[in-house]
């Protein structure tokens, strides 16, 4: 361990000595600089390591000048300051490296001195325990920053620097006044001494309020609090990115620590109020203002400011929020994680922004798709920044939400809204950056600092997860499983050179995992709803993964890892035992699936992500409502929880989003339609079923505990019914095969939702049966569609036609799928419909039954459209040599088609599993009965699947035989040989009826298929955008105004905290 003061002294000496070394040459200066940084970093790391390993037990107290604390100045280094010091020096070193690498501004020795002194200032700032000394170090930091901010010497940076100087001077004036007045008040400048001297009752006098406010207000200005943070944003925008990286990544965190610590020492009683008002305002305002931002650096600036707001909020709660026990610990970790996450990811982002060089985000097109490594770094930092699991930001956010007391629920809501807003703009940027238009881009400079940062970030992610699971005391299986997922995905990623190897490895992993699961006696013997979904996920995943092989050539190396990630996180959801672990895996699923969709198309993926974020965060808010004071992690089977209606609604929102229930469906069409073809079957067949799983959980465990549960269930059923109907109607008018199937998927999941909302055993039977069945037939259709798109190169229906001649097997399978989808008896689709209608009849929900049945009639329209437009009609000349779809896809198609036939004959193949699952939900029977071997009887009706199948097949054979007995001489004619008024059609296109098949229907239902919902979303979005665009003019760029806002804020704080004068 090194005496902390040595760090300061050595740095100082080094800085001074550079004045001499500069005459010896550049190398010497750099040598001195790097040696110093190295020394400082090592020293502070040794201290931090001492704290970490508990070698150092108490905070280090260093007396300077040999005088005991109140007399002399002393340094006080505790864990937090040591850790922060490590971060500051690390980021500082990276920033310096980056700066030197990108061409440091002349004269270099001076610049390096400024850099050193900046680090020195911030180190001193977080080490010192003397208010005035703090002021001195703040000034050192500020002045060094002034110089560095102006370093580029162009209009932007100078302007920013001058604004910073003026506002910084005002800030330091208040800090100075506050420090001196504190001395006057308490007779000392030592923080601890003053703290001992102050008690809360002194605040009633008013004097201490104003003094504390003045001191803390000065720091608040430095903390870039709304509305006095215009200067900070200008710096982020205008200054050298290397400088900004160290400012945002390190220095501001020092100010933050100082602020929180000072407030703590001052026992400032209004910290919570200040924190809530300013923290929240800063957070929300900057997250929203960033929406319209086109300059990438200012965008990052807004994000930084927002994170600081969140930090202030968290700090206020930690110091002043009356948190007890675990909550306090959670909040501390939230703060630490926020700081670490933001420091490393934001500095990386600024480095990368500088490497790429373009300012306008529109010019970032292709930035991450062109350079894979750049993309990896950028994605990691953005994901971490936006709080995607398993990155650190996620754990921070989770800790934060868990720690906030329940009576501050509105804060939870607002913070989550802000988080969603953050995702919105970050991934708008990500969307643009991942688009690829093939233009060759250049990246200037070295990525080493970013690489280091990202490596640290990845390490921190592990740390975060580890800490989260150990501190919250959640089952260790969750952590193990998470680690397992990550390791598997990384393993698949590593062999990314060869797609075949990836495919085999991923398939092997899935199969061996399933095998182990089935071998597990526990799993098999206790067959419940969770096992049902685990099996569903694994079976679906194996099947669909198998089918991806021919398509995988087109995909990037991250396809299979993300696939594995998605699948296993769905397994994680299915085996979750409490709401939090459900949420963790839920988010994991959302993000990994987002990245997968993003490989196909960007904008839809973005919408998907934003909707998922809204859903996920509302679920988190709902979970928060479920938690009680001592029990922060609500489990499913809490019998006596007082679950408020809102909790159920909020949690349900997440599931409704995933199910694509109207009016939350807007993501679905394009996300399904434009995701990679290999992934869409999984998305539709399995991933949307996670919403079903969640919905079942909610209805079984939560809804019974709330009042008016019947109304909620009835409402849900209506949502399901309307979704089923309108999505089917919308599907009719799509012209893209995958989009039709997308709408169809949502529509079918609407049926499932009705079944769940019935909450009767027959309803669950119907829902579970249909869940599996939908996996089979929709998977089949999507897989077939993938094959067709692979062969034809288009998913646009009017471009196809007549493919039955080229792809007979696919047609056969597709036909089976369509018949199943339409629910026509001999195949498996009908059983689900029959069960559902019987359940609805039983519950006498007539209107819903009417809508549900009618929706299935509407479904015939798009069913026919799909078959006709792809396979029937005229074959185009360009597809004359098209081959049958690749073999793996054909295999999967035929397997699935065989499955629908088998299940159509014997629905009990599926029903026997769903019966077991239903028994564990607390029902004694599945709601229907067998009469004989095959006849299924409900209270209203009966139905014999086996007979129907035999009857249909038998009659068909009889008809066929009859036909061959009487048939005339049949000859095959060419496709253009049609009755065409004696003419010969000149081309297949001219007689192929493939576009807008239901134009006549459109006229009848125009009002229903008008995109009302999408338009209202768009209008809301555009309205918000316009609003944001207007309000962000708040930052006028005028120095006077910025300064004026400082004063206005101060008077506002005075006014709300101390009304003594007025």
């Amino acid at each position, binding site marked *: 361990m090194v005496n902390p003061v040595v760090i300061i002294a050595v740095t100082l000496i080094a800085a001074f000595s550079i004045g001499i070394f500069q005459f010896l040459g550049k190398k010497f200066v750099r040598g001195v600089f790097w040696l110093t940084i190295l020394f400082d970093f090592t020293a502070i790391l040794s201290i931090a390591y001492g704290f970490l390993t508990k070698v150092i037990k108490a905070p280090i107290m260093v007396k300077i000048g040999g005088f005991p604390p109140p007399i002399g100045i002393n340094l006080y280094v505790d864990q937090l300051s040591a850790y922060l010091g490590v971060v500051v020096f690390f980021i500082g070193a990276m920033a310096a490296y980056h700066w030197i690498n990108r061409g440091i501004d002349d004269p270099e020795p001076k610049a390096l001195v400024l850099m050193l002194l900046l680090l020195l200032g911030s180190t001193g700032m977080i080490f010192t325990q003397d208010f005035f000394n703090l002021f001195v170090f703040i*000034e050192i930091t500020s002045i060094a920053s002034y110089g560095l901010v102006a370093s580029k010497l162009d*209009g932007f940076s100078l302007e920013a620097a001058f604004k910073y100087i003026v506002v910084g001077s005002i800030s330091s004036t208040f800090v100075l006044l506050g420090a001196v007045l504190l001395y006057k008040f308490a007779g000392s*400048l030592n923080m601890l001494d003053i703290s001992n001297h102050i008690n809360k009752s002194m605040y009633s006098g008013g004097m201490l309020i104003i003094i504390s406010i003045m001191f803390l207000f000065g720091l608040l200005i430095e903390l870039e609090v709304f509305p006095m943070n215009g200067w900070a944003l200008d710096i982020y925008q205008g200054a050298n990115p290397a400088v900004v990286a160290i400012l945002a990544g390190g220095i501001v965190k020092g100010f933050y620590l100082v602020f929180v610590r000072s407030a703590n020492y001052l026992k400032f009683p209004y910290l919570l109020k200040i924190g809530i008002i300013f923290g929240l305002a800063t957070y929300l305002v900057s997250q929203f203002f960033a929406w319209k931002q086109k300059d990438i650096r200012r965008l990052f600036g807004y994000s930084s400011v927002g994170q600081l707001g969140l930090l202030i909020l968290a700090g206020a709660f930690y110091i002043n929020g009356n948190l007890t026990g675990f909550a306090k610990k959670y909040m501390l970790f939230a703060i630490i994680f926020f700081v670490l996450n933001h420091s490393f990811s934001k500095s990386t982002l600024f480095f990368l922004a500088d490497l790429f060089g373009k300012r306008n985000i529109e010019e970032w097109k292709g930035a991450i798709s062109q350079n894979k490594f750049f993309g990896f770094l950028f994605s990691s930092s953005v994901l971490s920044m936006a709080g995607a699991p398993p990155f650190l930001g996620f754990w921070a956010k989770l800790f934060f939400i868990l720690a906030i007391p329940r009576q501050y629920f509105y804060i939870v809501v607002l913070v989550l809204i802000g988080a969603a807003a953050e995702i919105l703009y970050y991934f708008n940027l990500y969307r643009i950056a991942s688009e690829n238009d093939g233009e060759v881009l250049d990246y200037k400079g070295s990525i080493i600092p970013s690489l280091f940062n990202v490596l640290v970030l990845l390490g921190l992610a592990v740390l975060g997860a580890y800490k989260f699971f150990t501190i919250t005391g959640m089952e260790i299986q969750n952590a193990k499983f998470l680690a397992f997922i990550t390791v598997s995905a990384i393993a698949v990623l590593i062999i990314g050179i060869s797609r075949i190897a990836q495919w085999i490895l991923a398939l092997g992993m899935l199969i061996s995992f399933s095998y182990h699961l089935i071998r597990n006696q526990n799993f098999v013997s206790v067959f419940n709803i969770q096992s049902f979904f685990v099996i569903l996920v694994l079976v679906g995943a194996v099947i669909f993964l198998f089918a991806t092989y021919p398509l995988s050539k087109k995909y990037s190396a991250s396809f299979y890892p993300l696939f594995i990630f998605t699948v296993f996180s769905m397994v994680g959801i299915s085996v979750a035992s409490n709401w939090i672990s459900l949420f963790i895996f839920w988010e994991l699923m959302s993000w990994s699936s987002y990245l997968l969709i993003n490989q196909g198309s960007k904008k839809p993926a973005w919408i998907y992500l934003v909707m998922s974020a809204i859903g996920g965060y509302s679920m988190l808010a709902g979970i928060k409502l479920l938690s009680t004071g001592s029990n922060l992690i609500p489990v499913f089977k809490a019998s006596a929880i007082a679950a408020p209606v809102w909790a159920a609604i909020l949690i349900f929102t997440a599931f409704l989003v995933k199910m694509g229930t109207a009016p939350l469906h807007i993501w679905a069409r394009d996300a399904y339609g434009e995701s990679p073809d290999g992934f869409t079957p999984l998305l539709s067949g399995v991933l949307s079923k996670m919403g079903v799983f969640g919905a079942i959980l909610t209805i079984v465990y939560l809804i019974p505990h709330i009042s008016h549960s019947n109304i909620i269930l009835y409402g849900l059923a209506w949502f399901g019914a309307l979704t089923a109907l309108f999505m089917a109607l919308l599907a009719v008018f799509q012209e893209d095969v995958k989009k039709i199937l997308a709408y169809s998927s949502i529509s079918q999941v609407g049926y499932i939702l009705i079944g769940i909302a019935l909450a009767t055993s027959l309803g669950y039977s119907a829902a579970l049966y249909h869940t599996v069945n939908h996996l089979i037939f929709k998977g089949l259709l999507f897989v077939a569609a993938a094959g067709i798109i692979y062969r034809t190169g288009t998913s646009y229906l009017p471009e196809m036609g007549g493919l039955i001649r080229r792809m007979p097997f696919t047609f056969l399978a597709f036909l089976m799928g369509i018949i199943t989808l339409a629910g026509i008896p001999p195949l498996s689709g009908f059983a689900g419909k029959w069960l559902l209608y019987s359940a609805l009849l039983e519950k006498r929900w007539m209107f819903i039954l009417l809508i549900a049945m009618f929706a299935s009639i509407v479904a015939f329209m798009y069913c026919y459209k799909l078959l006709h437009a792809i396979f029937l009609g005229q074959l185009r000349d360009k597809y004359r040599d098209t081959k049958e779809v690749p073999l793996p896809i054909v295999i999967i198609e035929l397997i699935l088609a065989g499955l629908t036939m088998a299940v159509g004959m014997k629905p009990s193949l599926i029903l026997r599993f769903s019966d077991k699952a239903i028994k564990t939900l607390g029902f004694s029977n599945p709601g229907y009965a067998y009469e004989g071997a095959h006849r299924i009887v409900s209270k209203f009706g009966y139905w014999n699947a086996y007979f129907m199948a035999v009857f249909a097949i038998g009659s068909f054979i009889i008809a066929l035989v009859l036909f061959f007995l009487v048939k005339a001489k049949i000859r095959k004619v060419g496709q253009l040989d049609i009755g065409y008024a004696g003419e010969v059609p000149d081309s297949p296109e001219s007689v192929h009826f493939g576009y807008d098949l239901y134009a006549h229907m459109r006229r009848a239902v125009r009002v229903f298929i008008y995109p009302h919902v999408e338009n209202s979303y768009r209008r809301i979005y555009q309205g918000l955008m316009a609003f944001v665009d207007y309000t962000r003019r708040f930052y006028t760029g*005028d120095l006077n105004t910025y300064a004026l806002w400082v004063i206005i804020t101060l008077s506002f704080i005075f006014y709300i905290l101390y009304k003594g004068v007025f």
Partner: protein
Amino acid sequence: MVFFAASLLLIFIGLYAALVKRNLIKIIIGLSIMDTGVNMLIISLGFVKGRTAPIISLKDLFKKGSLLVDVSKVVDPLPQALVLTAIVIGVAVTAMALSVVIRMYSVKKSIEIDDFKELKW
């Protein structure tokens, strides 16, 4: 009390300049005035009626040989020490500000705020 009021007035005059003046140099002058006000305020906080400067002579000691000083003889030395630091810092900030203004002038040939409003929104 007058000292307090006067130095507060100085501070607010300086602030007013920073809030209202459109000329960069004038703003810097305002900041300097503000600094001066603060320094005056600090000094006046340390003042005690009827005491001398904290330069100790023999008569300020309790008794010969002990070297202990009679506290009631001299004013508070600490604010003076603090002011020393504050002044230097003020000088440094002013110097930085002026150099930035020089550079700004060289970029735009202007020292009016209206020409430096490119960073906004």
